[in-house]
């Protein structure tokens, strides 16, 4: 309520006094009240159980650092320090498994603590309160968005790294001897994965000068017609690069799919299991 009044008043107020002076005043105020406000902040966060998993020492250290960073942002009007700190906090926070809610909630609480204390100081001078909020609010909002962005970026980095790891793990191309590659495929193949698989296989054939490739699909529960076609196309493309493809571990279901989509099975070289496939490949390499 008080804030709404202040805002109305602000609109009607004539030219505000120099914002710099007011800023200095606010910074002084926050510095003077540092211990009280910080304690209040920590208390409020604790009551919202935002401090779970932190020791008292950590709480003291972090809260002091955040408090001072915010005040110095207000003082200088520059946010590099806040960005840097938020980045560090994000890295550590994610590592320690702190939730985004804890961090954002904490920063919101701090914003409220500052705002309330300003309301306390200027409660008898609505005009001045309005001006003080004019100076303080943009800074507080910027800091909040910096922290939120830092966290989101950190999460995104993590997600991207994991996706990359999954991508690489999902289609290993193994060389078990000169001219012989093995491509064990495990799990469902969707179109995206099928394409990756093809790309990696063809690159590997070209890089390692393979003559025979054994594609083991024992671990594939089933394929749809699109993926089956893709596998056949991969085999044909390998042939253009001078490598023959042997499919092993084709399950009865997949065999039915492949035949029912009308692939020319005569083009496909299939052997029952991986062992048989490798033996066949050895024979082919020996025969040239």
């Amino acid at each position, binding site marked *: 309520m008080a804030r709404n009044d202040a805002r109305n008043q602000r609109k009607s107020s004539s030219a505000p006094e120099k914002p710099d002076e007011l800023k200095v005043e606010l910074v002084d105020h926050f510095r003077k009240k540092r211990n009280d406000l910080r304690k209040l902040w920590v208390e409020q966060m604790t009551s919202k159980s935002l401090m779970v998993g932190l020791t008292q020492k950590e709480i003291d250290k972090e809260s002091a650092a955040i408090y001072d960073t915010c005040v110095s942002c207000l003082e200088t009007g520059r946010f590099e320090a806040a960005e840097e700190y938020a980045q560090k906090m994000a890295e550590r926070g994610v590592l320690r498994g702190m939730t985004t809610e804890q961090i954002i909630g904490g920063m919101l609480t701090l914003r409220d603590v500052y705002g309330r204390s300003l309301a306390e100081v200027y409660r008898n001078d609505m005009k001045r309160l309005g001006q003080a909020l004019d100076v303080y609010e943009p800074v507080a909002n910027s800091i909040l968005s910096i922290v939120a962005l830092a966290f989101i970026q950190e999460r995104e980095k993590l997600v991207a790294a994991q996706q990359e790891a999954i991508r690489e793990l999902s289609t290993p191309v193994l060389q078990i001897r000169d001219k012989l590659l093995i491509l064990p495929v495990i799990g469902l193949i969707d179109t995206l994965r099928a394409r990756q698989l093809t790309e990696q296989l*063809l690159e590997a054939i070209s890089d390692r000068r393979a003559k025979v490739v054994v594609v083991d699909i024992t671990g594939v529960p089933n394929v749809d017609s699109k993926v089956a076609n893709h596998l056949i196309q991969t085999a044909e493309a390998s042939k*253009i690069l001078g490598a023959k493809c042997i499919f092993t571990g084709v399950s009865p279901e997949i065999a039915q799919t492949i035949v029912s989509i009308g692939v020319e099975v005569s083009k496909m070289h299939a052997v029952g299991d991986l062992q048989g496939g490798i033996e066949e490949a050895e024979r082919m390499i020996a025969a040239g």
Partner: protein
Amino acid sequence: MSVPILKQGTYLIAVIQSALGDADLLMLQNDLTEMVGESNVNGVIVDVSALDVMDSFSTRTLRSIAYMIKLCGAEMVIVGVKPEIAFSMVQLGLTLEGVITALDLDEGLALLDREIGKRGENG
């Protein structure tokens, strides 16, 4: 741009240097078939590693050249198709069926040696 054709022993080696127009491809077809007919050639290698694209006409022409050369009593190997081109060719249905392919010139020469050696044994 015409394609230089080198003679190496009993093999002809044609290295395509840049993207070829339809007329250039037909010229390559003429040159190769004539040279196979004229001289004592039993193997031909066409190196396409400089190509970034293989369209339907060039694929078809290369395939026809291979068949023609087979009819003249020699073997032809296409070498140097890039992995990504190989796959897009297959996806577009541009197959080199009945044509021998190899990774690069080295492999192509080895392959010809084997193929022709085999033919010698059988014949």
